[in-house]
């Protein structure tokens, strides 16, 4: 048998909650395991007898007679019981035991109101949740609690909170509630007792529970009106509730209390009789209310209106009173939020009314508001009120619409000012918007009655075109329209756009569903189109703001129109392209201007929303076809590449706009992110096959033109799948589901367009002796202006199209193979080209690639090979390859030899950066981007031959003496030098190092293991080079700079979260140690300067937390850099770092404040800085050469440096205590005074604020 006394003693004597809990647990398990005959429950209760018995007398006699120790011990003893009960199984105790325990703990509320309440309440709470607890016992507990009487107030808030929880638990139990209801009936005596007990509660935590109890009671019980009134009086006394401190220790906010109290007000319609008059009375207090209280009242009113279960009893009797009060608030309210909230309350009020009640109140609204429409001063308020009422319900809308439209039309005829007209038109447009929103609601939200009501309003709206909008619209599109006419016209056009959106029926959206008569619709569209085509080509400066706003309204109206009347768009496109064609007769410059202005507008009008017709791609395909066709025509006519570029921008804009529209219209996103990549839900779609997709798109969208002869494209096996002549090819590939059909078609059309652009830009050639097959730019490219921009733009089109494909579709279409082939993989090689193929016959480029691209590659460094098919020697060709490669979702190196061979070749082509000698020299910058992108996608450590070559190349580049190189390195350097004739050896070495840096940059972000160790070591050695070190140093930034190249729409960059920390430790920190010249002279000043440059270029891309530990060393280095180097980019970067460091206000900076002030003031006068600097011992010429833009007196960097220095000086006074700065203040103010006449306005402004800040230190 367990000795419960020992456990109780352990519990009482212990102060550690853990230990106490253990004792209670032991007791609970002992009760449950001890043999029943031993009556463990009794023994357990008796175990605390010694503490209870000792005090039974004293508790009644008075508290003064007992010692504090006794009281605490007794409380602990009771807590022992409470904890034990909590640990007991809820099914263990039988009914008698539960009953005894209720009696025992219930008695505590009478005999031990000092320390027994909390444990007793806890224990009762647990007992009440036990299986053997009977609902009839709920009343006993409540009566026991009520027995506390006035002593309840004396309890601590924590204790009271536990008691409230107990009451809340009991009144929330359905069975207990039923018993209480049965026992007390409507008089609810127990609640009256509780109200007496809990009056004057002020603790937020307790109030929250107390409000919950009251809400529960009002909702679930059926008290008599007298009790409701009594309860209302209790909780309404707290209104409006607030908290003294915004941060209460319990975490409760004033908003929590407001919501809980609001729930009491809105708990039941029986409260409405008191709640509405109370709230309205408060609201009508007027100016005595603060905005917050007013908002609270309004929100409470709204809650009461929305939650009322019986509007007949709870809302209708008070509707007039509420309307009168709210109307006043809208008309006279000054706080915008309060007016908005009031309007919402009005909406809530009218949403609860129907039938005669609604009609009666709307009639009152008409009387109150319609007359106001004639007066410009009152019109805005009347407009708000009418709209709020109409938003209540479809019936309310219909009543308001019928009543208001005619008076608005009348008022418009006699409008007194432009503002008045605009207000009235705004009201009409808003009513239209409400109707649109109602009609577009799901059918589930509308009853048939509501549908009928809404449809009956149609005639009233149809007449708006002729009666209201037509005249101001026609006046506004007149070329000589005044400013006022334009403003009114804009509203009229907005109204027309909304008329197009109005529909007959609720359930469907289809052509002809618009309420506008066809002849009216075509008249409006014709006028809008003519207006657009006549104004769109004016430059922005020629037009007033009002005219521009009118044009924008016309664009939006056309967009609304063509969505519902698709034929209108084809006419607009035809007319626009005829204008473009006509412009070529004037000049290509004229054409360029028109394209730039009109194409984005066409894309928005046609593609920013899906047409209502079944063919959702109708507009986008039409526009893309027209663009491609005219682009082809322009290229054939040798138009400048600037014109091509505009078509490319138009194509991309069309694609992007339609993509967004598609995403918005579909219920779920087009793409979902999965582990292996994006999933578009098109898996196993028949259309996505390399052999089918081109033919499918050509067949399904026959209007899309082919920009180049396709006769020599090899027919793949899939395409031979027979189809009957009577049925178009695409029919058998159609998807069954409309979403899948739409998304798949869109993606394939985009890819088709990109393919067309690529194929037109390239051609397949053989070299002179017809032994090498390759791809080159087509003959359209003549090396003229803007051809490069065009290549960038079509590369982006491809990037966009491919990035929207899912992982499965990209793989399925074998797009990696198109990276070198540029969408010509299926081209058949004939004649001289065919001789390359060993087997002869009709081989495609893909067949040749399969034999050429192998992962194993032996390179002769004395004469590295030129790569097959696409040598990536021309920047434009690289760009096109980049457009396909960048969006590919690769995560591993592909298994098939050709694909992995392509990736390997890309790296080697990048490392060698071979330049086509026949072309003007051009840096292959996109090739570098490509390297970074690919090295971040795939695990580079698996490509050992690439890693070895990269290491060899960087080591060759940073070896400053030929003697240190091996044969392979010497050959490599010699080859690179031969490739870049005319460039210095230092420059060549820098260019050799760059591809390795870009590869490393991509890999560094996902770096695990040590495979980059040798490459990183070589990179760190770079700045030690006396000749080229400064170039290597500034290029270190490549490793750290955030690059969008790594993050494409389809391929999120792969990033190890701590890569920066690791890169700092392994790259920057070793260089930081070398950045300060050693006293023993072991590091030359130039090398130290190189390392400083490298560190600065790295640190500017890192956050302070990463280098915080080395802050002192870094500040020392920056001070040295600013003092010793000319004013240059490095000075700017150094000062940017100082600014970041100083913002933290760290104590580590305090010893350097004098020096920081000195360098900041010295850069303000560049000539003085130069003079001081010349005293240094560094070779000046070398320094000027090594720093970017350094030393130039008129360097554009100088104002930026000065502004930054002034900002630092100003901020120092904020971040550091005056005692550290005061001594310097007079000198700083004096020196700052010298820059007040600077020629840059920003410099002067910052000087003023800095002077002001330092003046304050002196005062």
């Amino acid at each position, binding site marked *: 048998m367990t000795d419960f006394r020992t456990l109780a003693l352990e519990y009482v004597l212990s102060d550690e909650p853990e230990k106490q809990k253990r004792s209670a647990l032991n007791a609970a398990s002992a009760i449950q395991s001890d043999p029943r005959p031993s009556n463990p429950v009794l023994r357990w209760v008796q175990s605390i007898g010694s503490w209870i018995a000792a005090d039974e007398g004293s508790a009644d006699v008075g508290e003064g007679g007992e010692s504090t120790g006794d009281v605490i011990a007794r409380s602990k003893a009771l807590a022992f019981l409470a904890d034990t009960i909590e640990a007991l199984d809820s099914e263990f105790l039988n009914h008698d035991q539960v009953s005894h325990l209720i009696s025992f703990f219930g008695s505590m509320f009478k005999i031990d109101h000092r320390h027994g309440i909390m444990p007793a309440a806890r224990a009762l709470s647990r007992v009440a949740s036990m299986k053997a607890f009977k609902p009839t016992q709920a009343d006993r507990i409540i009566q026991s609690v009520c027995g506390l009487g006035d002593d309840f107030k004396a309890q601590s808030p924590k204790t009271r909170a536990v008691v409230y929880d107990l009451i809340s638990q009991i009144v929330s139990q359905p069975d207990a509630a039923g018993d209480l209801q049965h026992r007390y009936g409507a008089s609810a005596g127990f609640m009256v007792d509780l109200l007496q007990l809990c009056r004057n509660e002020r603790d937020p935590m307790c109030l929250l529970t107390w409000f919950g109890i009251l809400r529960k009671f009002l909702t679930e019980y059926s008290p008599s009106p007298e009790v409701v009134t009594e309860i209302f009086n209790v909780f309404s006394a707290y209104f409006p509730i607030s908290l003294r401190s915004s941060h209460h220790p319990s975490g409760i906010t004033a908003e929590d209390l407001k919501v809980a109290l609001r729930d009491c007000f809105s708990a039941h319609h029986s409260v409405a009789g008191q709640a509405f008059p109370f709230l309205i009375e408060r609201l009508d207090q007027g100016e005595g209310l603060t905005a917050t209280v007013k908002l609270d009242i309004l929100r409470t009113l709204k809650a009461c209106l929305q939650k009322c279960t019986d509007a007949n009893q709870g809302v209708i009797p008070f509707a007039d009173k509420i309307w009168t009060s709210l109307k006043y608030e809208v008309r006279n309210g000054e706080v915008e939020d309060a007016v908005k909230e009031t309007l919402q309350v009005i909406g809530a009020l009218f949403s609860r009314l129907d039938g005669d009640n609604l009609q009666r109140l709307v009639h009152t609204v008409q009387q109150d508001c319609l007359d106001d429409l004639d007066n410009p001063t009152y019109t805005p308020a009347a407009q708000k009120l009418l709209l709020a009422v109409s938003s209540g319900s479809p019936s309310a809308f219909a009543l308001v619409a019928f009543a208001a439209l005619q008076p608005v039309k009348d008022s418009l005829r006699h409008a007194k000012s432009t503002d008045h007209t605009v207000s009235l038109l705004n009201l009409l447009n808003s009513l239209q918007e409400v109707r649109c929103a109602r009609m577009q609601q799901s059918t589930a939200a509308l009853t048939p009655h509501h549908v009928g009501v809404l449809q009956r309003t149609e005639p009233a709206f149809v007449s708006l075109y002729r009666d209201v909008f037509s005249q101001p619209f026609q006046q506004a599109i007149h070329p000589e329209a005044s400013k006022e006419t334009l403003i009114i016209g804009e509203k009229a056009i907005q109204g027309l756009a909304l008329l197009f959106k109005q529909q007959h029926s609720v359930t469907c959206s289809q052509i002809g569903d618009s309420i506008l008569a066809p002849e009216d619709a075509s008249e409006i569209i014709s006028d809008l189109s003519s207006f657009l085509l006549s104004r769109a080509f004016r430059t922005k400066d020629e037009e007033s703001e009002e005219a521009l706003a009118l044009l924008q309204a016309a664009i939006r109206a056309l967009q609304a129109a063509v969505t519902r009347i698709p034929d209108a768009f084809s006419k607009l496109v035809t007319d626009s392209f005829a204008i473009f064609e006509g412009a070529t007769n004037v000049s290509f410059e004229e054409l360029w201007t028109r394209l730039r202005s009109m194409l984005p507008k066409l894309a928005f009008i046609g593609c920013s929303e899906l047409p209502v017709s079944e063919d959702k791609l109708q507009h986008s395909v039409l526009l893309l076809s027209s663009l491609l066709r005219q682009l082809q025509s322009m290229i054939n006519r040798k138009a400048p590449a600037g014109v091509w570029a505009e078509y490319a*921008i138009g194509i991309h804009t069309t694609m992007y706009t339609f993509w967004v529209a598609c995403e918005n219209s579909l219920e779920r996103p087009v793409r979902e992110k999965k582990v292996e990549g994006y999933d578009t839900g098109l898996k196993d779609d028949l259309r996505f096959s390399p052999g089918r997709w081109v033919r499918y798109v050509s067949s399904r969208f026959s209007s899309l033109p082919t920009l180049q002869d396709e006769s020599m494209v090899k027919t793949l096996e899939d395409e031979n799948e027979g189809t009957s002549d009577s049925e178009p090819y695409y029919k058998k590939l159609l998807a069954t589901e409309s979403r899948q059909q739409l998304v798949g078609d869109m993606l394939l059309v985009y890819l088709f367009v990109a393919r067309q652009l690529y194929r037109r830009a390239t051609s397949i050639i053989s070299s002179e002796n017809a032994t090498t097959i390759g791809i080159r730019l087509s003959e359209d490219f003549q090396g003229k202006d803007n051809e490069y921009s065009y290549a960038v733009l079509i590369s982006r089109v491809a990037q966009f199209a491919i990035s929207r494909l899912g992982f499965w579709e990209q793989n399925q279409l074998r797009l990696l193979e198109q990276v070198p082939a540029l969408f010509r993989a299926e081209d058949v090689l004939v004649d001289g080209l065919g001789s390359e193929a060993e087997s002869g016959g009709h081989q495609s480029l893909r067949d040749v690639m399969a034999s050429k691209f192998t992962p194993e590659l032996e390179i002769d460094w004395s004469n590295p090979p030129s790569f097959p098919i696409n040598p990536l020697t021309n920047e434009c060709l690289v760009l096109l390859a980049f457009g396909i490669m960048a969006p590919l979702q690769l995560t591993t190196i592909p298994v098939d030899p050709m694909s992995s061979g392509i990736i390997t070749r890309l790296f080697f082509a990048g490392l060698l950066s071979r330049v086509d000698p026949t072309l003007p020299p051009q840096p292959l910058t996109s090739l570098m981007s490509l390297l970074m992108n690919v090295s971040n996608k795939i695990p580079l450590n698996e490509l050992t031959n690439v890693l070895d070559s990269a290491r060899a190349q960087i080591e060759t580049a940073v070896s400053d003496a030929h003697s240190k190189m091996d044969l392979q390195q010497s050959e490599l350097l010699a080859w690179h030098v031969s490739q870049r004739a005319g460039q210095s050896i230092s420059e060549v070495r820098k260019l050799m190092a760059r591809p390795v840096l870009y590869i490393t940059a991509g890999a560094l972000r996902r770096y695990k293991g040590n495979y980059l160790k040798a490459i990183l070591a070589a990179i760190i050695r770079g700045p030690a080079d006396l000749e080229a070190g400064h170039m290597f140093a500034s290029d270190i930034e490549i490793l750290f700079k955030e690059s969008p190249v790594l993050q494409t729409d389809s391929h999120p960059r792969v990033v190890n979260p701590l890569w920066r920390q690791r890169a700092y430790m392994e790259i920057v920190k070793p260089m930081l140690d070398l950045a300060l010249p050693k006293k023993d002279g072991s590091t030359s000043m130039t090398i130290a300067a190189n390392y400083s440059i490298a560190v600065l270029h790295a640190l500017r891309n890192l956050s302070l937390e990463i280098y915080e530990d080395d802050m002192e060393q870094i500040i020392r280095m920056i001070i040295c850099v600013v003092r010793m180097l000319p004013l240059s980019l490095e000075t700017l970067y150094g000062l940017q770092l100082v600014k970041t460091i100083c913002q933290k206000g760290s104590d580590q900076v305090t010893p350097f404040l004098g020096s920081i002030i000195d360098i900041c003031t010295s850069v303000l006068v560049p000539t003085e800085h130069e003079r001081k600097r010349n005293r240094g011992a560094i070779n000046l010429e070398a320094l000027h050469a090594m720093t970017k833009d350094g030393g130039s007196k008129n360097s554009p960097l100088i104002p930026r440096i000065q502004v930054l220095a002034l900002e630092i000086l100003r901020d120092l006074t904020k971040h550091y205590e005056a005692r550290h700065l005061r001594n310097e203040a007079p000198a700083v103010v004096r020196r700052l005074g010298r820059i007040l006449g600077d020629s840059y306005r920003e410099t002067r402004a910052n000087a003023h604020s800095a*002077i002001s800040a330092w003046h304050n230190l002196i005062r």
Partner: protein
Amino acid sequence: MDGGVENANPTILSHAELPTRQNKKRSTGKTGIEHQYDHIILARPDYLSPLYGTDDVAWFDGPLDDTDGLTQEPIDEQEIYDLISTISDPEHPLSLGQLAVVNLPDIYITRPPSTPLEPNTLVTVRVEVTPTITHCSLATVIGLGIRVRLEQALPPNYRVDVRIKEKTHSQDDQVNKQLADKERVAAAMENETLRGVLDKMLETCV
């Protein structure tokens, strides 16, 4: 000051009515709804950034700007206005700009047009003050405040001339005389009470 407020209900301009440089610059970018995706479609490619050594390539957003939008502009009337319009009025909790005591059209800068940015050329700034009432006894203090502010904020080659606007004050001659008298200005600055008033007025200047 001690005698209470002389003009208890001056005309006050709201902040929106005060002349600022921002209103003069009209945005030149494309703002229409049809250009909403231009920032994506026409974004400068990363490989045309300085890091790749190709920052000199023109793109649709124009060449890269080394100066961060900083432009060389001489001190003009608006700048002088910005310096003095934020001075507090000695008797109202409002700025001189809000009270229309200083106005942009009443600021004149004489600068030889041939050498607009030469640092050693003498330039005179004349500010004409409009008191809120014709018998304002604080006109001298206000003028002094403006003078002190400009002398502190302008470079040494700028000469400051503060006057009361003609016919706006009953004793404008006397006030102008006082404000133009260097010795009297210097003496006034020695007066601790006056100095305190001026410091309070200039507290609101940024």
